[in-house]
């Protein structure tokens, strides 16, 4: 019975793993999600006492997770922008997957943000009593709006499910929504640009934290632009990496090599620009901003484990190196270079967000301040992992029951169309 139901929901003609194996795959992730939900419940019910956050270390694992998944989720808006606005038709092969990834990333970020902020019954206060001078307000509004946009981008993919598409009214709505997707792509790009920037700007304006503070261009600190650029660069790499993982786990090709190559090329070029601007920004900060604030930059790297290796890892190993690989046509064509480079680019943006969140708060700001340490509590860790598990579960379900990769069917048809001359 359940097998028949499962088969009726999977895309026709696309082989999927047997239901039993799929369920076995989901069991540990669902268990992890359950523990994460319990941890989240404890934080909401008993407050931030359940965490190791305090007034001095107010941002921890959760904010790091938020910043990272929002940066990686930029693959959704950027792929949509490239496909619907800049007409890069090859990306049609991954747009559905990118939208699902974006939805997972943003819904996960909003969920964890709600736990962090607490008081869920008063969540609407942020909209009703907004502090318009706070960048966090802009981030909250943008995140909420963009999550709504992503939900409406996800909806047509769900409505194309084999069973749902049999209902004419849903099919017609899906068809029309799909035709209007360019508007969602533009709105998504607008929102994403702003909140990515605001998240960066949030650190750049912290004058009391010289490690994060940056000079302003007009009213925006340089981190505003660097966050946008790094997210746009890492997003396509994340789509590439997840497509590759899905392809390996399902043991079949899901997109043509040209699609990987294009994602790598876009990511690489943006990454080169980002590394260049990040290097300039770092040099200005080391030689001008920091000394002006009365702190020798060497002091920032005097506390273990945050030595100068962090700077090297962020800019060179996880920035310049993948950028060089992804901009080389020869290396891009070789999956042995392309895929690790995409993973490195994603790791680079994750490290950048970690540095901005954790290292910024750990470093002393006054001569008598100690170097702060922070280790997340199990509730923080499990709710963090719960979001990861939620992502895996939702993506797995989407992959099984929706047509995430339109080229999959084409690639499955191993036999190419051939000429059968029957008429002289």
């Amino acid at each position, binding site marked *: 019975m359940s097998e*028949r139901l499962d*088969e009726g929901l999977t*895309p*026709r*003609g*696309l*082989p999927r793993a*047997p239901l039993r194996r799929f369920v076995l795959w989901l069991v540990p992730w669902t268990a992890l999600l359950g523990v994460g939900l319990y941890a989240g419940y404890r934080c909401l019910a008993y407050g931030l006492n359940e965490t190791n956050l305090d007034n001095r270390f107010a941002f921890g694992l959760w904010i790091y997770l938020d910043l990272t998944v929002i940066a990686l989720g930029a693959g959704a808006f950027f792929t949509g922008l490239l496909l619907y606005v800049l007409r890069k038709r090859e990306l049609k092969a991954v747009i559905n997957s990118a939208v699902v990834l974006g939805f997972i990333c943003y819904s996960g970020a909003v969920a964890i943000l709600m736990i962090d902020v607490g008081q869920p019954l008063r969540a609407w206060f942020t*909209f*009703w*009593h*907004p502090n*318009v*001078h706070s960048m966090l*307000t*802009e981030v909250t*509004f943008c995140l909420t*709006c963009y999550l*709504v*946009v992503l939900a*409406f981008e996800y909806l047509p993919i769900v409505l*194309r499910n*084999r069973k749902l*598409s049999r209902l*004419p*009214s849903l*099919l*017609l*709505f899906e*068809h*029309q*929504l799909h*035709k*209007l997707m360019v*508007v*969602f792509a533009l*709105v998504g790009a*607008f*929102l994403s640009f702003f909140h990515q920037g605001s998240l960066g700007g949030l650190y750049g304006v912290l004058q009391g934290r010289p490690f994060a503070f940056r000079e302003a261009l007009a009213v925006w600190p340089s981190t505003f632009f660097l966050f946008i650029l790094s997210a746009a660069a890492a997003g396509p790499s994340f789509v590439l990496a997840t497509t590759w993982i899905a392809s390996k786990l399902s043991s079949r090709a899901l997109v043509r090599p040209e699609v990987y190559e294009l994602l790598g090329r876009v990511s690489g070029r943006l990454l080169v620009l980002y590394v260049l601007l990040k290097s300039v920004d770092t040099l200005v900060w080391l030689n001008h901003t920091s000394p002006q604030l009365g702190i020798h930059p060497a002091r920032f790297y005097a506390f273990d484990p945050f030595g100068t290796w962090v700077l090297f890892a962020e800019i060179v190993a996880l920035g310049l190196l993948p950028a060089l690989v992804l901009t080389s046509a020869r290396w891009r064509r070789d999956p042995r270079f392309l895929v690790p480079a995409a993973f490195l680019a994603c790791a680079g943006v994750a490290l950048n967000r970690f540095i901005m969140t954790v290292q910024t708060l750990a470093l002393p700001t006054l001569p008598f301040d100690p170097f702060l340490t922070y280790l997340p509590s199990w509730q923080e860790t499990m709710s963090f992992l719960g979001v990861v598990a939620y992502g895996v579960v939702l993506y797995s379900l989407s992959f099984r029951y929706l*047509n995430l990769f*339109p080229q999959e*069917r*084409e690639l*499955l*048809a*191993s*036999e*190419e*169309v051939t*000429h*059968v*001359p*029957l*008429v*002289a």
Partner: protein
Amino acid sequence: MFPWSPEFVWDAGHLAFFGAFYSVLAAIAAVLGLGLRRAVADARAGRAHRIAWHAAFEELPARDRACRHQLTGEAPGRVCDNAFDCRRCAAHPSFEALRATHASAVPATGPAGLHLPGDRLYHRGHAFVRPEPDGTVTVGLDDLARRLVGEAEVVERPRPGMCLEEDAPALRLRAQGREVRVLSPVRGVVIGTSGEGAAVTVRVDPEGPLDTRHLLDGDEVGAWAMREIERLQALLGPRELGPALADGGELLPDLGAVIPRERVDGVLGEMFLDL
């Protein structure tokens, strides 16, 4: 939050912030409203089946969208972009002109022992159309389709008086425990149905002259049947191996019964173009 709220201040920050926010919300609402309105208009105009067929057609791999003129060699490698509707194809008349004028009669027996009588026209979804002397047509399953569904059960047949649309489901069958929809090759009003299982036929009144340019006939039927058998072989062969050469013989009369259970659904969907 709103201009009437006591916390709202008429300054640039509030105006820019809320202006952008409400513009975004308005854009989202407008898009949804427009989508809904257009969907209702499509439903009222009866475009649902056409849209469904086009959506299914777009999902077909290039191999399954082979142009009829590719099958007969007039246009090697050509893939159809018109949802198998040759009436909308600008190149179709020129390819027709290319075809030899002395088209031979189609043999009653096609490749692999398939029975494909020449008095019928064939739809790519394996339904045939037989014009009757009284101006009506009979629609049924071609021989390959019958062998695929074997001892099928008719789940849903069109009621007399119902209007059939081209490329919209005409019949629903259950074979090997899986359901498949048979697409209608013509448009018209159903007069009646007869037969059971795979032998079911539908009598249709096209209500006017019947335009059959989108249906296969003549020499191309044999070429198409050969290609369909190749498709079937590809679908049934080991995925990692691809299609293997057959060594002759005839297709089993109840082919569906020997297809591995886990592949029946996919094979039926692909062969009947019911994705």
